[in-house]
């Protein structure tokens, strides 16, 4: 089942020609419209005309999350602000969000790629799609929502949370496809069990799960516990949100919607392009986006590309599941968290020490973040009450900076292990 068969099964040569034409146009446009790109091309000694085909993409400089922060909020927009019809944002490393803007045509592209994603997972006009991703600045909820409407399915926009109600609605409304993070899918399955419900009590057939890394083992658990086929989807707000790549029924890699997003794998250290089949950092270029085009965005996600034909008939290149990060970003309940965000909160409080450690584990399929903070003479008090107030104050500041709740645990001075003079910042105990 395809949503857009011509694009999804296009001959490779034709696809390269389409990508070339779109890249040439995109480079010229951003050179004209976005001072950042004009300067970065000039610095690289490159004229827009020197990009004559998709083969030339390696000549272009990269863009990073730092560039987005430096141009906060609207510096990278390539259209007049009046043309922007939607803003989304994701949390940044220093408390500042990274903002993305969509034109009405961009929203159309997003609906299109999400319609392909959902169709590949078996969705149709007859489907009931329950969107249990968060709605709001996070792109998960609205991204799936618009795609599901484009397919013509009945959309149930529950947003995340309130698990018992999620299950009741799935049962009463006859939900056939569930969209949420994979860890939340497992949590729903466990809650169902506690409520005495089995997969036979539901009409669920498939789920599209993403926004955080998950393993084949987790896929097996979800498929068994919910009695469904579980599809991995990939995306990031900087590029468009969910819909950059998604699995077909072969479940052997995620097809990248290459007519809109061009993918490369690079060596994260040297920046050299690596051949298909080698593991490296995924770099994405938006070929059609108008509001905020991204030329060679460094995702920091590690993956492998595979251009071999797929049994499903799609000719779109496939990326592996995300195999890790080339930076220290953590994904906790679908929210991006950087250790440096914790550091800036602690330093901002003044009295706390910069020695901290993040411990992430998963209980009942939900991620829990604990932040260990070393006690200092300044913070210490002979009264329990004052130390508890301090703990709660740090917790409140962290929750507001990270957009995810964290438990603070005060530990003895020097309790956090220093290796080579540098503390180990993150212990991830999650068995994904």
């Amino acid at each position, binding site marked *: 089942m395809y949503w857009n068969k011509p694009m999804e099964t296009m001959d490779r040569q034709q696809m390269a020609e389409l990508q070339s034409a779109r890249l040439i146009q995109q480079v010229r446009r951003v050179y004209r419209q976005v001072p950042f790109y004009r300067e970065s091309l000039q610095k690289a000694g490159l004229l827009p005309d020197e990009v004559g085909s998709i083969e030339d993409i390696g000549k272009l400089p990269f863009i990073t999350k730092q560039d987005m922060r430096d141009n906060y909020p609207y510096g990278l927009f390539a259209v007049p602000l009046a043309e922007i019809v939607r803003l989304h944002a994701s949390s940044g490393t220093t408390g500042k969000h990274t903002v993305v803007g969509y034109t009405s045509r961009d929203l159309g592209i997003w609906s299109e790629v999400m319609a392909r994603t959902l169709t590949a997972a078996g969705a149709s006009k007859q489907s009931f799609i329950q969107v249990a991703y968060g709605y709001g600045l996070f792109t998960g909820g609205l991204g799936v929502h618009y795609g599901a409407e484009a397919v013509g399915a009945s959309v149930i926009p529950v947003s995340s949370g309130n698990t018992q109600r999620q299950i009741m609605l799935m049962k009463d409304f006859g939900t056939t496809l569930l969209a949420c993070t994979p860890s939340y899918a497992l949590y729903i399955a466990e809650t169902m069990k506690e409520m005495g419900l089995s997969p036979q009590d539901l009409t669920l057939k498939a789920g599209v799960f993403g926004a955080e890394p998950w393993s084949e083992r987790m896929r097996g658990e979800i498929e068994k516990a919910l009695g469904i086929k579980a599809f991995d989807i990939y995306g990031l707000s900087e590029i468009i949100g969910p819909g950059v790549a998604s699995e077909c029924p072969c479940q052997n890699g995620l097809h990248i919607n290459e007519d809109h997003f061009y993918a490369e794998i690079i060596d994260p250290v040297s920046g050299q392009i690596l051949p298909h089949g080698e593991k490296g950092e995924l770099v994405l270029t938006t070929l059609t986006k108008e509001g905020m085009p991204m030329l060679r965005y460094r995702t920091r996600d590690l993956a492998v590309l595979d251009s071999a034909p797929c049994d499903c008939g799609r000719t779109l290149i496939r990326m592996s599941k995300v195999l890790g990060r080339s930076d220290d970003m953590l994904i906790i309940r679908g929210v991006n968290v950087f250790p440096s965000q914790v550091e800036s909160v602690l330093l901002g409080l003044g009295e706390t020490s910069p020695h901290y450690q993040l411990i992430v584990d998963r209980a009942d399929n939900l991620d829990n973040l604990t932040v260990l903070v070393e*006690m*200092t*003479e300044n*913070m*210490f*008090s*002979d*009264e*329990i*009450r004052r*130390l*508890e107030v301090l703990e709660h104050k740090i917790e409140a500041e962290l929750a507001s900076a990270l957009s995810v709740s964290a438990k603070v*645990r*005060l*530990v*003895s*001075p*020097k*309790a956090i292990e220093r290796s080579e003079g540098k503390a180990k910042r993150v212990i991830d105990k999650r068995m994904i």
Partner: protein
Amino acid sequence: MIIQQISVFVENRPGTLAEVLGVLKEHAINLRALSVADTADFGILRMIVNDPAKVERILRGAGYAVKATPVLTMTVADTPGGLLEKMESLSAAGINVEYVYAFAATSANEARVVIKVDNLERAARIVNGDATAAPVDAATGDVPGFYW
């Protein structure tokens, strides 16, 4: 009488209290009074020793978070209601008591307590007659009535 109490931060896991006590033993420090207040994650070890400044130095040197806090000590009659009378006089004066713990006493007729209050000087005056009756010996730092 107002004296310095030493507080130490200890994590709430097996062995942490023993570690602190081990350090004190190593330096031949005798504890006069001891109290532990704890939450699920951490505890505060509070103690009265004969040379608070030295103990503060030793524990800080051993890597602990330490704090010296002035607290009020007083003797009360070792009979039912002995402490009650003192506490009532403090509460009548609107003084907030943060915590109380008992002290090692030298006599069978008396008990000693340590109290942390929000207005130390005033509290000391209120319980006066008992707790501040015997001033600290300026030469030795000894407190009459205590057996160190």
